């Protein structure tokens, strides 16, 4: 142990010793400077995990982000007083809505506007149709009963026609369960934020998860090509039937359509032979609803892609050979499916159609094998279209008495259906982006080894900005822009969360660090830190000495 001597005696020997002491203290100071002033910050800097400063408070504030959908609904009636009454009633009904901020406007309607209308299609072509996505027009058509038995008729664009005797309650019912689908929207958001408490509704369970691009794969399965030869131009059929709908959905995401033929792939289930007892003795094969899930598994191994990372919607046509035809799907109750459509849908995966070759070809023994058969393109593609709509998130509508919709003929998607879909997707993407950002920020708080480089940092900033911007746009009713913003937010948040650079240092655990640092740093730092005491004492002593000298 060293004890500091008082150096105030002023003898020459003392001065010498003081000089020597000064050198030693300088050496100690040098050690301390090199190790503590230079070494420690250098070590800290070089071993620091790089992390861009992130908007944690803004991410936390997303929890209380006010997501309301602003929307303009115009009501056109011939009688302005009735219009005003409807507006007041509807306002009253939708006052309690938590998600929608509806603005009802009464628009005057001239009789001459409807003078030239002879069919619902004429109404569709009238100039008063709202153009902007998300808007709606409720149009009173006095003689609606001329065209339809229904009181309310949903059009192909953004208009709902109603007869003069329709009440505000009826209109609100149509708005609520068909056009706005608020319950479904709220359930979607709730199921995403608290998946353990709320389940997705029927339509939410079927809908494909959001993505920037989807693959659509049509597969034709012909288990016995030596017996049945199919004459079918599949690429052309896809082009003709699916492209129009995909074109209309192209705002939502991009689509890559592929098709393939599979031979010698069997269903791996044994259908039961059924002979109809009532008279005709019609023989067919029955496939019970319960075993349908087993059909997908043997097909799966031929459906994967080695290139694409997009979610894939699979559509499969199974054409049974003549010996196993006709093959029908039976429900649990032992009945055939209503309408005789032998098809089923697997949520978030795709659909399968069983298309039986016509009995005319199968039972004609004069035709040599392989028998030529051209499948009914319209029937198969029609089912696929219906399934594609469900998988993309256009729900089946609940029936309301005396409410109908114009049939799809020239287009494959009603504009208000598309608007509803935009709303669901926007909310889904917003919620997903929000949750992703929040879990990322939580993860960063818990694991200090995660690197956030500039690119990831900027995509987090972009995601946060987009979420906030999209919420603002939704409030003002700019649905299409809000959708684009939310998509950007969703993609940026996903990209940030799944970036491989996050994991760069994750394999390097803390205990390994200490295993290396402690044997080196502890023995080195202890003498240096202890020497600080003597440096301090020496400096203090010198100061005292100097002040003393001055005083003297």
């Amino acid at each position, binding site marked *: 142990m060293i004890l500091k001597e008082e150096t105030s005696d002023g003898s020459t020997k003392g001065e010498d010793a003081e000089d020597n002491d000064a050198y030693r203290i300088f050496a100690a100071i040098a050690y301390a400077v090199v190790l503590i002033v230079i070494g420690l910050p250098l070590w800290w800097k070089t071993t620091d995990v790089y992390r861009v400063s992130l908007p944690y408070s803004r991410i936390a504030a997303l929890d209380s982000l006010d997501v309301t959908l602003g929307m303009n609904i115009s009501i056109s009636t011939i009688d302005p007083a009735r219009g005003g009454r409807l507006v007041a009633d509807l306002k009253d009904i939708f006052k309690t809505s938590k998600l929608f901020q509806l603005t009802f406007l009464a628009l005057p309607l001239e009789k001459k506007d409807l003078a030239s209308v002879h069919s619902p299609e004429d109404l569709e072509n009238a100039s008063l149709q709202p153009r902007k996505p998300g808007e709606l027009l409720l149009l009173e058509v006095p003689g609606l009963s001329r065209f339809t038995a229904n009181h309310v008729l949903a059009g192909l664009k953004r208009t709902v026609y109603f007869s003069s005797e329709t009440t505000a309650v009826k209109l609100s019912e149509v708005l609520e369960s068909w056009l706005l689908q608020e319950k479904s929207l709220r359930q979607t958001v709730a199921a995403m934020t608290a998946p353990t408490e709320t389940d997705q509704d029927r339509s939410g369970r079927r809908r494909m998860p959001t993505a920037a691009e989807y693959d659509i794969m049509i597969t034709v399965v012909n288990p016995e090509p030596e017996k049945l030869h199919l*004459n079918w131009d599949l690429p052309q059929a896809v082009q003709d039937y699916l492209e129009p709908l995909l074109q209309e959905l192209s705002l939502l995401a991009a689509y890559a359509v592929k098709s393939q033929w599979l031979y010698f792939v069997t269903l791996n289930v044994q259908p039961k032979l059924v002979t109809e007892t009532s008279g005709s003795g019609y023989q067919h094969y029955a496939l019970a609803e319960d075993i349908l899930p087993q059909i997908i598994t043997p097909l799966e191994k031929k459906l994967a892609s*080695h290139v694409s990372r997009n979610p894939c919607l699979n559509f499969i046509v199974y054409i049974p050979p003549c010996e196993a035809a006709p093959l029908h799907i039976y429900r649990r109750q032992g009945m055939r499916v*209503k309408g005789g459509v032998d098809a089923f849908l697997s949520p978030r995966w795709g659909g399968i159609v069983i298309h039986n070759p016509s009995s005319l070809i199968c039972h004609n023994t004069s035709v040599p094998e392989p028998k030529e058969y051209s499948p009914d393109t319209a029937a198969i593609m029609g089912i696929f279209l219906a399934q594609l709509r469900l998988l993309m998130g256009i729900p089946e509508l609940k029936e309301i008495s005396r409410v109908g919709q114009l049939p799809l*003929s020239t287009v494959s998607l009603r504009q208000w259906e598309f608007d509803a879909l935009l709303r669901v997707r926007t909310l889904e993407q917003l919620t997903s982006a929000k949750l992703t950002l929040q879990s990322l920020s939580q993860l960063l708080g818990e694991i200090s080894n995660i690197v956030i480089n500039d690119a990831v940092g900027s995509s987090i900033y972009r995601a946060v900005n987009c979420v906030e911007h999209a919420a603002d746009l939704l409030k003002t009713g700019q649905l299409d822009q809000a959708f684009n913003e939310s998509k950007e937010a969703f993609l940026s948040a996903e990209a940030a969360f799944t970036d491989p650079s996050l994991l760069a240092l994750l394999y390097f655990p803390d205990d390994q660090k200490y295993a290396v640092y402690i044997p080196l740093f502890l023995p080195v730092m202890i*003498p240096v830190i202890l020497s600080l005491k003597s440096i301090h004492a020496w400096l203090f002593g010198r100061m005292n000495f100097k002040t003393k000298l001055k005083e003297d």
Partner: protein
Amino acid sequence: MMVVLHTIFSGLLCLQCISSVICTPQKDYFDEELLLKPLPSGHVYAYFQFTTLWDVDFEATSFQHCHLFPRALGEIVGRYNVQELHISLTEGLWRHETWGYPVHDAAPGAELWAWFKESTKNIDKTWKELAGALSGLLCVSFNFVDASNSLNPEFTFRPAGIVSSGAVNSSYLRYSTLPREIVCTENLTPWKKLLPCDAKKGLSTLLNAGHIHNTNYHSLGLHLRPVCRDTTCSQMSVELRQTVSLVYDMVILGTGNQDWSIKKLFGIGLSGACPLATMSNIYIDIALNETGAHFQLTPTPPAVITSTRGGHKSKFAVYDIKALDIDGMFNIAAVYSSSRVYGVNIPPVLFANRYIIGYGQERGGIVTKLHNGHWQALDVVYLENIPWFIPLYLHTLKIVANGKEIKPLLKRFIPGKARARPYYLEVALRLPARSITEISLEFDYVFLKWQEYPPDANHGFYIGAAVITSLLPVGRNYTGLPQDGSTITSSFNASRDGYLVQLRTETLIITMPTPDFSMPYNVICLTCTVIALAFGPLHNITTKRLRLKNKEQNYVIRWFKSKLTRSSEMKEKQS
């Protein structure tokens, strides 16, 4: 969860479409063939070829809708802008000297080369992605293929199919081998899945893993190229050849005689042709029947073809499976008149051997011996593909033919760069008539970074096979297909000006100096301890001085002492 669909779709149909649906048959054809060739050495060579021809433009969009062509492969080809693709997965070494030339020569391990379209932007990146996708498709370690083990040789590889522009630009070519790759069932199964009939019908039912992997040599191949649709060549078609080469050693099969049959080789008879195939044939080379051991085929072949090719005559028995009325299992057997007679082995015109020279772990060398048995000089191109961690010296390149040094016609050399590119050497040579030419090169053994050693580093490092390319003037021992042909049938009576052979030599294995892998951790621990131990005294010496102690003691020690004395006093009192 399944939901049976109730929706009636009647409203969805678009009427304007229906008129435009005109049924056009898919323009693609599938052929399956098997060539069986008894070799003079007593081995049997079985070569399967499954050819898919598809009359479609070689565009990315064409591959979106596939019929007989495998979609999984089509997607990859379309996505990565591939012009031509060749893959071979091989176990064992093809012995040219005794077996002649195979239809497709393949290097031991995995070999991959591809030509990209001229519109491809970043070829190195696309190449890596293509290899990655193929590794998923075929369960091969192609994910290890990147710029550091890929070459673009200038002379050895030419596009096998048609090309749009006249000049060949080898910068669109990438070639890589993985000599350490072990080929097994996990490669055969996905390979079979690419066939339209899978392994359910036709000749592919003969490919049973148990009977393929007990051969002396087996090689899976996949060759994709654009070909002419007709003789005028105004339109393109896509040709995909899937091949399996097998060499059976009848001694290993252990039947005590030389007889072989389909059932004996493949473990199963043939139940029929693939219904999707336009052609389904089995060819048996019966030329050896006349010159070597005599054998009888049962059932008697329906047709025998005599093929003259490059002055060499051969005879093939042809079984058309589609024409045969097969009931149950079909089998072809060759019954020999004597128990075991081997034919006279006439080695092919050109063959090669390769080995390592040198001793110790300092200097080594590679020697390749090229045997030219022809009465004329032969021009060959020799391609060497040496990994970057084996530094090669060009000045040590020595080419000696029959004891006399010869000058190469052409030399291309790009030295390797550590972790960036391999050593590339391509030499064009004129081999003198009836000569043995030795090409020797020297290299150094080096240390690698400790993370670059593979697991089991003491096993050694592989050097890929050299490729020797030549255009032979004679067709002896030659079984390859002509460039304008797609099927084995096209090789009958196909006399051409020259016969392209590409020999792959042996792969080599060298032992690199291998460190003790626990060393880095030991070093860290040791240096830390030494530094820590040395620092304390150093610090003390430089900052402190030994000095006589003052009597006055530190108060801590004083306090301890007082405690101690007090407790001892207490004890004394108690005692």
